[in-house]
């Protein structure tokens, strides 16, 4: 336990090394990933990875808020939606509006709203904070569906708005268009890796220590001179900005958005990703995002790989969610501290075994002399 605390507090060079390894591994994905064909559903790994990357932006921020600061939010789909709608509205209504600026505007507006909301709401704790953020998420969803002139109502953008555009324009930076899955893949995951770097630096900073202090005991942290209200607001705003960024990227990647994409279920999905991956674990967010984005798709595609299955069982879409729900429960029952923690225990164990073996081999050699 002592060692773990120390590790958390100082952060380690290892974190940067691991980040490099993960970055290389993920950036190599398009080299081997080919769409897996199938008559029911074909599994396009790169495409799903883009979606995972977009969600990862939001989940990294949420992990800081929930995992490190211990403040729950059940309404982050709202910020994701604000980001998506801001850039979609700007770039569709005004065709001259640069898309990259739209993305930045989306993240910024999400941050501003996060600040306006966070200052009063973060006075609440635990279940009440959960409830208030949940309410905010619902209000945002209703506004997305009701402000018809701006958001195109339940139809969404671009079909629902008056300006005639085929779809939300592809993201372009200095004339370079990210208009294919592969290009978008590199963009999104480069951003995610930068966010991870930011994440490592935040948790190693004064703010990060303050957040962990207020997680374990707010009163004690305050007594030690940590300005808990300010830190909580700061991390809430940061998580809102990151969710807005993710949402804006999502809008440009999908090409169309509607309120259905930003429901309570999305907020729940984000929280689930954080928890299943591992709350307060540096890699928890990313692991959770990848596992939970692929899981439903894989479950759905699974039966077509089993030969000799009766055709009425081939359509798995009916019970995808049944299995998904069960798996969620099972995950929490057997890996309550998250997959990432489980993995790193595994890695630690392996490392220890390896060192042990190495030492024994060395000792044998020594004996031989």
């Amino acid at each position, binding site marked *: 336990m002592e060692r773990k605390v120390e590790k958390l507090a100082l952060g380690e060079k290892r974190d940067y090394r691991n980040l490099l390894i993960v970055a290389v591994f993920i950036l190599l994905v398009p080299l081997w990933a080919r769409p897996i064909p199938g008559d029911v559903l074909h599994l396009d790994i790169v495409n799903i990875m883009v979606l995972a990357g977009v969600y990862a932006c939001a989940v990294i921020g949420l992990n800081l808020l929930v995992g490190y600061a211990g403040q*729950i939010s059940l309404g982050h789909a709202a910020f994701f939606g604000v980001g998506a709608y801001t850039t979609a509205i700007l770039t569709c209504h005004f065709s001259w509006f640069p898309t990259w600026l739209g993305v930045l505007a989306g993240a910024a507006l999400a941050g501003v709203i996060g600040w306006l909301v966070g200052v*009063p709401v973060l006075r609440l704790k635990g279940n009440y904070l959960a409830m208030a953020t949940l309410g905010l998420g619902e209000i945002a969803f209703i506004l997305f569906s009701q402000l018809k002139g701006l958001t195109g109502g339940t139809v969404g953008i671009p079909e629902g708005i008056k300006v005639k555009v085929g779809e939300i324009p592809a993201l372009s930076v200095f004339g370079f268009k990210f208009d294919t899955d592969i290009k978008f893949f590199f963009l999104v995951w480069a951003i995610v890796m930068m966010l991870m770097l930011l994440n490592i630096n935040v948790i190693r900073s004064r703010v990060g220590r303050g957040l962990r202090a207020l997680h374990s005991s707010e009163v004690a942290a305050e007594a030690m001179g940590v300005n808990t209200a300010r830190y909580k607001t700061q991390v809430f705003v940061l998580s809102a900005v990151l969710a807005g960024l993710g949402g804006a990227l999502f809008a440009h990647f999908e090409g169309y958005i509607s309120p259905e994409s930003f429901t309570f279920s999305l907020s*729940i999905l984000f929280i689930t990703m954080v928890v299943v991956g591992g*709350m307060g674990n540096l890699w928890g967010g990313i692991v959770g995002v990848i596992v939970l984005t692929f899981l439903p798709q894989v479950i759905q595609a699974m039966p077509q790989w089993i030969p000799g299955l009766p055709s009425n069982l081939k359509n798995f879409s009916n019970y995808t969610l*049944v299995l998904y729900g069960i798996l969620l429960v099972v995950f929490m*029952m057997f890996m309550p501290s998250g997959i990432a923690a489980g993995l790193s225990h595994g890695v630690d164990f392996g490392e220890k075994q390896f060192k042990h073996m190495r030492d024994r081999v060395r000792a044998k050699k020594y004996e031989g002399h």
Partner: protein
Amino acid sequence: MGRADDRQRILLISSAIFIVLVITLTLSLKRSTGFQWILSGLTVGSIYALIAMGFSVIYSSTRVINFAQGEFSMLGGMLMYSISVKGGVPPWIGFILSVLIVTLVGAGLERVAIHPLKEQSVIAVIIVTIGLAIFLRALAKWIWGTDPVKIASFSGDKPLRFLGASIVPQSFWVFGFTVIAVVLVFIFFNRTLVGKGIRAAAMNKDAASLVGVSSSTSSLLAWTIAAALGASAGIVIAPINFAAYNVGIMLGLKGFTAAVLGGLGSFPGAVAGGLVLGVLEMITAGVVPSGYKDAVAFVILILVLLIRPQGLLGKSEDVKV
């Protein structure tokens, strides 16, 4: 402390005055239409109250918010459809059977998924209940499909005229069931040894187990009661609203809102919160475009939380250091 108490009393009284004012204003401006809104508000409010009580039962015995609470109501309605409408069984037998099945489901889920988690963090348990909600919803979609189903009212559809407003007979069933459920739950928790045991376990698990109250049993009982409350709410409202695989989300959210409005863990609070939420919702639905109806409920909720986080009737919890 005295000043804080005074402030709370002032807040409570002023919110009561506010609600009375809203109701009288609506009545004087809109007369029979206003009365109509209040009646339908009380009807849905009763349902919210039943669901809110389910939340409160589980919360007060285990400190967990059960996100599958709304799904119990959905299951109740859908089972009623299968047993009574499809199966042709008389409604009252259908009602008892459906409630019984959902209660067993609730108890079973507690044993399989919640009980083994005893020592886990609250958020882990919350995620498990979310998983259960997804599971139940998907199962219902698989079994019953996506189309909403209609269930016949228990005693005809001919609306009764009452002070210029019309009221469907089913509303009386809703009121009746709510009153019975509230009385039963009240008697159980205040007059029976088992019920008192659950309350004791909620206050202090260790002290309760020292005098022979098992926290495991009280968790099981809490889930059983919550499932029964949720199922009966879902069944009695089904003839007014439609029953469908996805009604659980909104019913759950509203019940949750009502529970927090009244004060999580307080039974009178749950009832008051449900009724207030239902009436305010219907009045606002009459005044503002109906699309914003749900938003107003959540705005009220957030305001209440910010002004009085422990709810209208809840006791404030002291922070333990």
